C-alpha cells in the first residue's frame, strides 16, 4: 500500500535522518499512514505545510529541491488527475492529529496554518523512544514560535536532558511546552514533571555544587539544563517526585 510515509520517506531518504523522518510522520498522525487515494486536497495542503517547515529546518541546503519533489509526489499520487473532492468526508484522517483538526475549518485549497502562539503541548514520556520524539517536538515548537536557530537547538538539548532524567530515574512522566508572548519577548516555558523517587535535599545540593555524579549522569544533565536556560526552578522531595520548570527567552 502506498502511503505518505512510504512515498515521501523515499524522497527524504539520504537528506533527512531516519529519526527526524519518524518524528515528521508522527506529527502528521493518521495522515501519514492513510492510503494515498484517501487524502483530500486539504490533507495534502496540511502535509505539504508540515513537510515544508520540517525540510527547511533539517535540510536547509536542499530544501527547495526536496519541497518541489514532495509537492510533485503528493499531487501525482494523492489525487489522480487532481480530482479529489475537498468535501469528501475524510475528516477522520485528522482524528489522531488534534493540531490539524483544530484548523479543519480552513477553506479547501488554502494552506492550513496554526495560530501564531498556539496552545500548550503535553508530551508523555514513558520510554527511551519518547526522548527522541520529545526533543524534536520541542525543537519544532521553538522554531514555530520564532526562537532563533541556535536557541531552538538549546531547547531541544534541554528537553532531551529532562526527558532522559524522567526515563532513567522515574520511569515515566510528562513534559509540557508552553509558548508565551508579550509586548517585549517570546518565551517558551518547559515543565518536566514525574512522580518518581524525588531527590533528597543533600543530594540536590551536591548536584548543583558539582560534587555528585550518578552512574548515568543525572547530575550532569540537570546542571547542563540550568546552564542552557534563562530561568530555572526545581521542586523535588523524596517520595513525591520531581518538577523542573525552565524558560527560554527570545526577543520579539
Amino acid at each position, binding site marked *: 500500500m502506498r502511503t505518505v510515509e512510504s512515498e515521501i520517506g523515499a524522497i527524504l531518504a539520504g537528506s533527512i*535522518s*531516519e*529519526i*527526524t523522518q519518524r518524528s515528521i510522520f508522527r506529527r502528521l498522525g493518521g495522515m501519514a499512514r492513510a492510503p494515498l487515494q484517501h487524502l483530500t486536497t486539504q490533507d495534502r495542503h496540511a502535509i505539504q505545510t508540515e513537510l515544508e517547515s520540517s525540510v527547511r529546518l*533539517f535540510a536547509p541546503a536542499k530544501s527547495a529541491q526536496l519541497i518541489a519533489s514532495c509537492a510533485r509526489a503528493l499531487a501525482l499520487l494523492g489525487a489522480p488527475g487532481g480530482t479529489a473532492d475537498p468535501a469528501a468526508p475524510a475528516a477522520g484522517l485528522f482524528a489522531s492529529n488534534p493540531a490539524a483538526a483544530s484548523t479543519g475549518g480552513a477553506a479547501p485549497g488554502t494552506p492550513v496554518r496554526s495560530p501564531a502562539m498556539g496552545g500548550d503541548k503535553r508530551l508523555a514520556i514513558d520510554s*527511551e523512544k519518547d*526522548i*527522541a520524539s520529545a*526533543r524534536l517536538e520541542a*525543537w519544532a515548537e521553538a522554531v514555530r514560535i520564532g526562537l532563533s*536557530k*541556535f536557541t531552538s*537547538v*538549546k531547547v*531541544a*538539548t534541554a528537553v*532531551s*536532558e529532562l526527558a*532522559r532524567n524522567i526515563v532513567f530515574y522515574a520511569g515515566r512522566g510528562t513534559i509540557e511546552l508552553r509558548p508565551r508572548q508579550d509586548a517585549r519577548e517570546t518565551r517558551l516555558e518547559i515543565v518536566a514533571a514525574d512522580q518518581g523517587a524525588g531527590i533528597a535535599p543533600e543530594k540536590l545540593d551536591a548536584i548543583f555544587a558539582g560534587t555528585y555524579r550518578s552512574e*548515568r*549522569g543525572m547530575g*550532569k*544533565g540537570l*546542571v*547542563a539544563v540550568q*546552564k*542552557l536556560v534563562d530561568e530555572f526552578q526545581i521542586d523535588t522531595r523524596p517520595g513525591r517526585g520531581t518538577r523542573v520548570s525552565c524558560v527560554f527567552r527570545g526577543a520579539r
Partner: protein
Amino acid sequence: MKTRDEQELPIISVRGCLLVSIQTELHDRLALELRSALMERVRLEAIRGVILDVSWVEVIDSYITRILNDIGKSVRFMGADCYMVGIRPAVAMTLVEMGVELDAVSTALSLDAALEKIELAR
C-alpha cells in the same frame, strides 16, 4: 527480523582507520555494542584511529557526550586515536554553554582532516 532501530551501526574501514557515521539514536545497548565492536576491530586489524562522524546528529546532550567520551577513552587505552568529525555549529555552541567535557575525543573539521591528522601522528 531486526528493525532499523536495533541494527548495529556499520563500521567502515578506511586507510587504516575505522569510520562510524552515527545516524541513529544512541542508547545504552547500542553504544556498548558499538564500543566493543570498535575495540575488537582495533585489536584485530591494528587500527590507528577511530573516527566518529556526527554530522547527522542534530542534538547532542550530556548523555550522548558521555557515551562518545567513553568510546574515546576505551579506544585510547588500546593505543589508537579517536576523532569526532562534522559537529554542527549549533551543537558545538550548546556543548560549550553546557560546560560538558569531551576530553578523550579529538575533533576535526572533516573526515579528510581527521585522516590527515591521524597519518601525521604516526
